[in-house]
């Protein structure tokens, strides 16, 4: 098994210490940093598949995303100006009035793992902040998260703010979170909703990939 394949398998098996050790060793031996990133992405793709198949659950998703983040932090200084190819730009945040961030953070990391440039605005994000960042970055996708029913109005206001900024036809808007469903989608006027991170990736791939 080659080093890239080994790294992909280790992160897919959510082996934190071994994955990082292998990445360090590969870098020390002069491996191509971009190929290591690709290996990590391959492994994360397996994690996503296993999550979707309900073989993995939240702990595996969260821990593998953390391993990916830690590994990228090791690799980035070796990139020497090489840039990782992106599939598109996403602006993500939790709706105004809501500070829940577990789901939003996972979606942001999974989008990064899948090759998207992600601008994470954090929690309690105002509609204007979403619109401003989407305009600045020329994002193709805005993802709004919320766990509270009070977030429904903030999601709707964000959709309206993006329209007022003249961006509604230039990007897609997805919403996600525990109580989000078809009824909430209709209320907010967004384009699609997702119940878990793999659905968010699928929606991003559909609209940007």
């Amino acid at each position, binding site marked *: 098994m080659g080093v890239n394949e080994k790294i992909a398998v280790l992160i897919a098996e959510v082996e934190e210490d071994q994955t990082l050790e292998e990445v360090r060793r590969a870098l020390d031996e002069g491996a191509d940093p971009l190929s290591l990133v690709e290996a990590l992405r391959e492994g994360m793709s397996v994690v996503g598949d296993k999550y979707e198949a*309900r073989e993995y*659950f939240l702990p595996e998703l969260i821990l593998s995303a953390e391993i990916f983040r830690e590994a990228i932090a090791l690799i980035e200084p070796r990139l020497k100006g090489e840039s990782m190819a992106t599939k598109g730009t996403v602006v993500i945040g939790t709706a105004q009035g809501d500070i829940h961030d577990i789901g939003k953070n996972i979606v942001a990391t999974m989008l990064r793992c899948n090759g998207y440039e992600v601008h994470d605005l954090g929690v309690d994000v105002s509609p204007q902040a979403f619109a401003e960042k989407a305009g600045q970055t020329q994002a193709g996708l805005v993802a709004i998260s919320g766990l509270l*029913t009070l977030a*429904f109005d903030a999601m709707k206001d964000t959709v309206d703010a993006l329209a007022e900024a003249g961006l509604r036809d230039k990007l897609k808007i997805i919403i996600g979170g525990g109580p989000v469903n078809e*009824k909430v989608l209709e209320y907010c006027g967004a384009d699609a909703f997702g119940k878990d991170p793999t659905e968010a990736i699928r929606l991003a791939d559909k609209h940007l990939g």
Partner: protein
Amino acid sequence: MTSEERMQAVINLQVPDRVPVSPLIYYFAALYAGMNHADLHEPKNWNKAIDKCFHELGPWDAYYPLNFYHVEVGTFIFPMKVLEPGIELPPDAIRQFLEEEIMKFEEYEWIMSACRQTPLFSYLRLFMRWSPRIWDHVGEGWKSYASVLPLIADHLARWKLEFRDWRARGVTQLYGLGYEAAFDNFSMARGILNFSRDLKKHPAAVAAAAEAMTDSYVFMLRMVDLFLGVRRVVIAVHRSSNDFISPETFRKISLPSLKALVERLKAVGISSILHCDGNWDLNLEALRELPAGCAVAQFDGATDIFKAKEIIGDRLCIYGDVPADLLALGSPAEVDEYCHRLIEEVGKGGGFILGSGCELAPNARPENVKAMMESVVKYGYYA
């Protein structure tokens, strides 16, 4: 039947005269009474708001107490830093919890040691250890006891009076006091990333510490419920749904301590209401391991409650689950239709309590809440 007899009947999996109803109301009461959420910190405002709900939208069978007279008391149940409306948040926001590390990894071992030394008081000792990490104004060591214990005592004394008033109105209490189950407590106090790492690398330490705390959980819950005169407790299992963990992790690591707790409480005549937020579909089979007639499984709309009736309906009373989005965005006719279905299918043969899926959405439409309450009168009589 009185409301208490009705509750006892369904928990014992018997058929009552009609389906009991118990909505979980807190912030909704403020909006309905024309207040903002921060106003509920003042006890007289809470009493006024919940009374208005009871008289105009009720009645209900069991009062679901969720008003904390001191925010520190909430920490005793959910070991997380909290942001409150009107304090850290705008007055119309709702209470939110921060995902930060309160519990250190080394404390799994500390818990084992504390449970060996002082089995009945390990819960108290653990939370007094954590309190200064949550609240800046709470000191370390004996100072934490001196700061927090009087607040808990005052809170319980006020609840006791409150419960007496509700009983005078013919309304029983859903529970006397509640705690987060040990496994779920650790998940909250460690933070989700740390806890994910613990489950991957040290699952046996998590399970052992959770089981070791059973004696102190039983002792604390029993003492408080004796004082309050309610023979039911809420055991919240917020982090044991399949939104968080696999059915295998639930069965091997979370369930053993939960089962031990429920069985021990049953042995002293206390029923457990398991507050099962999130999706529990894949855990339902494992819940059959709990003894029949000992507990209530409360669902919030994320679990397939109709499937739950099929799988655990002969073991546990089922409670729920009018979804938040339906109450906030639906129509009274849609709520009526859903409640009718719940009563017909989940209420078949008894063993069912109608309620909102978790806390009633603050922005629920009052006419929808009324439709939910009225449905037990329209469709809920068995004879």
